[in-house]
């Protein structure tokens, strides 16, 4: 019995620790302590742009195509091809695109942070920072969070544009069941700027959590190179779980009561 309880107890204490860590980093950002390292923040933002933007857009684009194709064929079979735009609009903006963004961010940015900070931890670089009188949590974690806040909203917005374009291409050009005007009419009718803001919010909450989880596992890595590998895997698992939790809760909160299509029951 005791062993059975040991596992959840361990998870609980880990959750508490991660929560505290996240709180500290967030307060470093909001308390403006991070501004002492604005150079490092911009450097991190730059790294994010150069190394991760294209791959995120690529996944979003492919999934936009897919939403378009599926919607078009499915609705054609039901005799309502003109409504392909609905499927594309919702599939893109509400669900698939935020998830695609979350997945790629977790895979590319989250694990990257764990590997980087973990390597710094096991080679005493973080201790070296501390000894040089630099607050390593602020220097390493808060700068990465702020850097990603500076960059990721734009990456996401541009990615949505790409996904919409992809759906349009799929429905209108490839499957060719609706005219361009017909698609657009329905497509825009079934969404509004608030939807767009909700979607952006969902994605940014995911981004924040992914970066913080990555920082936590990297910053607290131990046990040599193997330990860093294990921490990377753990962070990926946790991030995928959290991405889905956030996606689900976001949909319930933002669109559950929507008069256009209440899915909250």
């Amino acid at each position, binding site marked *: 019995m005791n062993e059975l309880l040991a596992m959840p107890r361990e998870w609980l204490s880990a959750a508490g620790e991660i929560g505290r860590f996240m709180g500290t980093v967030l307060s470093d950002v909001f308390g403006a302590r991070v501004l002492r390292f604005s150079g490092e923040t911009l450097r991190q933002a730059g790294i994010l742009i150069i190394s991760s933007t294209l791959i995120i857009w690529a996944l979003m684009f492919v999934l936009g195509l897919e939403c378009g194709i599926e919607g078009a064929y499915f609705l054609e079979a039901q005799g309502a091809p003109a409504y392909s735009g609905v499927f594309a609009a919702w599939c893109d903006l509400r669900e698939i695109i935020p998830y695609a963004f979350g997945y790629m961010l977790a895979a590319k940015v989250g694990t990257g942070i764990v590997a980087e900070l973990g390597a*710094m931890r096991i080679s005493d*670089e973080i201790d*070296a920072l501390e000894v*040089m*009188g*630099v*607050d390593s949590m602020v220097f390493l974690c808060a700068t990465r969070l702020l850097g990603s806040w500076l960059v990721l909203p734009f990456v996401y917005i541009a990615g949505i544009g790409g996904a919409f374009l992809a759906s349009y291409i799929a429905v209108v050009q490839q499957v060719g069941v609706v005219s361009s005007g017909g698609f657009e009419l329905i497509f825009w009718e079934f969404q509004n700027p608030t939807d767009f803001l909700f979607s952006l919010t969902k994605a940014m909450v995911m981004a924040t959590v992914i970066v913080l989880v990555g920082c936590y596992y990297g910053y607290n890595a131990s046990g040599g190179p193997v330990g860093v590998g294990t921490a990377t895997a753990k962070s990926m698992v946790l991030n995928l779980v959290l991405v889905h939790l956030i996606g689900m809760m976001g949909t319930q909160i933002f669109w559950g009561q929507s008069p256009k299509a209440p899915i909250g029951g």
Partner: protein
Amino acid sequence: MATVEQQFEWHSGKNRSAGVPDAIEFIDVYKSFGSNKVLQGLNMGLPEGMISMILGPSGTGKSVCIKHIVGLLYPDSGDVVVHGQSVPSLSDAELFEFRRQFGVLFQDGALFGSLNLYDNVAFPLRQHTEKGEEEIAEIVNRRLREVGLGDAGQKMPNELSGGMRKRAGFARALVLDPQIVLFDEPDSGLDPVRTALLCELIKEIHAENGGTYVVITHDIMSARRVAEYIAVLWRGRIVEAGLAQDLFDSENPFVKQFLSGESAGPLGME
């Protein structure tokens, strides 16, 4: 399991005073990681202005000692005092200020992998001083030349050999003219000639800049070359400490065995 008396049979704890005040003092320090008791009532003083060496077998907690001195680890009980200040009782803000008097060379150099050598050495200057790039360049290049890396400034740490990384870490540790410099095994993983050269370097730079140096090692040759004061650490306590010559003449069986590197004696494989 050996009884407490057996474990500490050879620990006379004898401390032959060096005749100068201590810069760093450990007072009855205990520290465990889980069930692993690392420091078990450590009492140690390291004299001001000298090159002290902490000698001891692998895994006795030498690196743990260094981390206590700069407040990266806190004792479970006992106190660590540096220049009269109790380290565990410093607040976070005070601690960051306090650490500026130190230069620390970590066991593997701990250079920042994302910065080249020049930027690594310039890092503390850029963080803590208002110096312009020109002045920084002058200081950094001088320090790099001093450790024989004058033209390696543009290299990345992963392009360097272990010895070069250590020397670069040395340059970085010295760049803010610290009053206390801590070296964690500057000689491990180096060939005998490089070790000798590095020891010379430590001595030269100490002679030039002064300050309190604490060098951790388990290499007796290095100890013979540079130590002015020696503390022998084993099982989390001092076996004996004193001026280097006194320790080399010590009659204590453990100290004798360790300083002559013999296999027969109190220290086994355990």
